C-alpha cells in the first residue's frame, strides 16, 4: 500500500529540520498562495513546492496527489468560467476574466494541498506531535488526536478496499466504468465502515490509556526538538515568502 501521507525516509536538510519549522514552511507557502495575485508568484510557489519535493525525494507523493487534484481543478475551472461571465468572450461561453479567475483558483487549490503533503512526507507523525507539544505548547491530547486521525486514514482505506473486494466477489458491480453508479453502490457500505471505525477508535483509546496516556506531560518525550540555527534561518525565509506573497 503506497499511501499519500506515508513518511519518506531521508537525511536531507528538510528531514532534519524541526517539525515545527516544516509546519511553518507549509503554512508560509499556503499563506503566500492565498495572498498573491499574479501568475508568476502562484506558479513560482508551485515550482518551489516541487523543488523541495525533488530535494527530499518525495516527488512521487506530490505527483500521485496531482493525479487526484488535477481533475478537480479542471472541474473548478469550468465552473468558474460558467459563473464569471464578465470580460471579453474568448472561447464558447468562456470570457477572459472567467478564465483568469478560474485558472488562479485552480493554481491556489494545488498550491494549498501540495505543501501539506510535502511536509507530512518528510516528518514522522510522532515527531510532529511531540514537537508541537514541546515548541508550540499544544496540549498533548490534541496533538495525539490529530496524529491518530491521520494514522487511521490508511487503516480505513484498507478496510474500505477489503469491503469493496468482498462485495465485488459477491457480484456487486464495483468494477463498473460508470463512476456515479459506483458511488451509489458504495454509499450503503459507509454504515459497516462506521461501525468498525467506532470500535477501533474505542480500542485505541483503551490501549493508549493502558500505556499511561494520562500521565504524559510536556517533559515526557525522550526525543528533544530544539530550534536550531537552521530552523531560525528557514523561519526568516518563511516570513520573506509571505511578504513576497503580499507584494505580488
Amino acid at each position, binding site marked *: 500500500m503506497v499511501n499519500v501521507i506515508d513518511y519518506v525516509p531521508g537525511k536531507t536538510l528538510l528531514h532534519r529540520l524541526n517539525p515545527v519549522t516544516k509546519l511553518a514552511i507549509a503554512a508560509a507557502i499556503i499563506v503566500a498562495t492565498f495572498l498573491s495575485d499574479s501568475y508568476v508568484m502562484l506558479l513560482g510557489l508551485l515550482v518551489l513546492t516541487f523543488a523541495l519535493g525533488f530535494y527530499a525525494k518525495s516527488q512521487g507523493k506530490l505527483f500521485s496527489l496531482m493525479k487526484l487534484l488535477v481533475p478537480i481543478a479542471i472541474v473548478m475551472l469550468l465552473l468558474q468560467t460558467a459563473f464569471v461571465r464578465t470580460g471579453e468572450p474568448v472561447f464558447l461561453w468562456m470570457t477572459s476574466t472567467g478564465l483568469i479567475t478560474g485558472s488562479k483558483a485552480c493554481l491556489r487549490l494545488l498550491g494549498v494541498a501540495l505543501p501539506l503533503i510535502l511536509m507530512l512526507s518528510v516528518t514522522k507523525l*510522532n515527531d510532529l506531535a511531540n514537537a508541537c507539544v514541546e515548541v508550540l505548547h499544544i496540549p498533548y491530547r490534541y496533538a495525539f488526536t490529530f496524529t491518530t486521525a491521520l494514522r487511521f486514514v490508511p487503516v480505513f482505506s484498507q478496510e474500505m478496499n477489503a469491503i469493496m473486494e468482498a462485495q465485488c466477489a459477491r*457480484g456487486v458491480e464495483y468494477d*463498473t466504468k460508470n463512476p456515479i453508479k459506483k458511488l451509489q453502490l458504495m454509499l450503503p457500505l459507509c454504515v459497516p465502515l462506521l461501525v468498525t471505525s467506532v470500535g477501533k477508535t474505542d480500542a485505541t483509546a483503551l490501549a493508549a490509556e493502558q500505556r499511561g496516556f494520562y500521565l504524559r506531560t510536556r517533559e515526557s518525550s525522550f526525543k528533544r526538538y530544539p530550534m536550531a540555527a537552521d530552523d531560525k534561518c528557514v523561519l526568516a525565509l518563511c516570513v520573506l515568502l509571505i511578504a513576497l506573497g503580499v507584494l505580488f
Partner: protein
Amino acid sequence: MAESTNTPQPIIELKDVSFTYASAASDGTEAPKPALSHITATIGTGEFVGIIGPSGAGKSTLASVMSGAIPHHFKGTLFGATLVDGKDTCDITLTDISQIVGSVLQDIDTQMVASVVEDEMLFGLENFGVPHTEIEGRIEETLATVGITDLRDREIATLSGGQKQKVAIAAILALHPRVLVLDEPTAALDPASSTLVFDTLEEVRRQGVTVVVIEQKVALLSKYCDRILVMDQGKLLLDGTPREVFAHAEKLRSIGVDSPRVARVYNSLAKDGLLPQGKPCLTVEEAAAIEERLIPEASRTAPAEGSFRQGSKHVVAARPYAEGAEPVVKLRDVCFQYPNGGATVKDLEMSVYPGEMVAVVGQNGAGKTTLTKLLNGLLKPSSGEVRISGLSTKEVPTSRIAAHCATLFQNPDYQLCKDTVLDEVAFGLELQGIDEEEAKRRALRVIERFGLPEKESPFSLSRGQRQVVALASVVVMEPDVVLLDEPTSGLDYRECMTVMDTVSEMANRGCAVIMVCHDMEVVSDFAERLVVMANGRILDRGATLDMFSDTSLMKEAFIEAPQIVQLSQVLSRTVSPAFAGVSQVSGIVDLTEEMVQRG
C-alpha cells in the same frame, strides 16, 4: 510443561466476579445475560496461564477484568472483587493497574500509536516517566528478549503479522509489567509464526513475568501453559494443568473446544480400558512412547486391510468425479506482480475438478491470498490464464464471475451489508438477476437449514453466527466453485465443524472447493488434495497424506504436519509399518486395539 505443585504467590485474584455489559441491558426486555458469572480464580506469580472456551464464553471479558478495562473502560454491572497485587481494581485507576498488568489487544493495529517501531516502544516508556537515561537500555533489552532487535527502525506498516505481534508485545513488555495479558495473539498467524510468538512468551515468562493468554490453538496451549482455564457461557468450567484439562476431552468437545489429537487417542484408549484414565499425553513423542509400551512385540504385524484407514466420518473418500471430466478451475502459467513491487506469484499451474476439495497451505506471505484473488477475478493475471467454468478471468468482469465462483472471506464483516439476515442471504441471488421473490424463497430454505434468525440484523449476531450468515449467502448461490479464505479462523470448534460439514456437503454435490487454511487438522480432515505454496510458487501438489508425509517438503514450506500424521509416521518406523498412512484419531485407536487384542 512443568506441573506446579506448590502454590505461588497470587498476583491476580478474582473473587466471585460477575459482569454484565451495559449495552446488553439496554436492548431486550428479558433479564440481560451476564458475560461473566461467579468467577473465582487466582493467577500466581510467574505462571503461564491459558484461557480457552467457545466463542461468546466470556474469555475477552475475563481478560478485560484482569487488565482493569473493566470497570474503568467498559460500562456495565460488576459484582465481586478483583485484586491485582492485593489492590481492588475498583479502588485504583486504570493507569495504576496497567503499570502492573500490561495487556495486548486482539486487534493490534488499533493498539499501535506510532509509525516506526522505536517510537511505538517509546510511547509507554515516556508516559510512565521512565528516566530518560534508562530508556535506551530498556528498549534494547526488550527488543532482544522478543528477538526483534533488527526491526527497531522499521516502519510498522511494512511488517508481517507475526512481526507486528512481537512489536506489540515488546511495547508493553518494555514497561516492565508483572503480568502480561494477551487476547488471541496468534489468531491471524500461520503455525510457524504462532509458535514463534509462544516461544517469545515462554522467554518472557522465564524472566519472571506472569503470562495470561487467550488462545484457540490447543496444541500450543498444551505445550506451553502450566495451567488452563476453560470458560463456557460466562462460567469457569475447568481449571487445571493441561493434562488434567484435556483428560475431559469429551466434555470439552460438547461445549465446542477441541483437544490435541494425541490426547484424544489416549482418551479413547483409556476409555476402552487399555490405559489408565486421567493423564493423557500431549505431544507426539509421548504418544509414540506410550503406544510402543502398549503394543506387544508379537502382534506388530499388519492386519488385513481394515476399517482403521477410514477412521472418522471425516475421512475423505476420493470423490466420484467422472473420469476425463473437464476441470472447473484451470490455471495455466499464471504470474502476477503487485504494481508497487510487493509480493509476486509465479508459474502457477493447477486444475480442480467438480466435487473436489483442495486445500492451499503455506506460510503467511507465501502467496495464498493472491492465488484466491486471482481465482475469483479480483486480480487479473499479468501473464497466463485463469479459467473458471470456462470463463477467462481476464475477459469477464469480476462481478460476473461471482455467479460461478463464490468466496467466503476470513472476516464476514466485509461481506455483510444488509439490514436483515434474509436480505443478506438473498442479496447475492438478486445481484445475479434472479427476481426478488424467487431469491427470498431460496434464501429462506438455506436460512432454515442453518437455523439462523431471518429477521435479525446480521451485525447484532455473534462473530461465529455472522460467519454462518456469510456461509449461507455462499451456499444459496449454488456456485460451481467455492473459495474459502481461512474459513475457520476466529471460530470455535463447533462453529468450525458447521462450516466445514456444509462445505464438504457442497463438494459431494459436485461443487469444487478450494480452501486456504492454516489449521492443518482441518485440512487433513477435509481436503483430499493439497497445494503447498512458498515464496509465491507452488512447491508441490498431490494427495493430502502424501504431501503431509513428505517431511522435506513440509520443512521447505514451514508447515507442521498434523499430530496424527506425525504420530503414524513415528509408529510406522518404531512399532509396525501398518501405521503408515493412518490420518485419523479413530484409525490409530482401532489399529492399536486390534494389535493389543491379538497379543
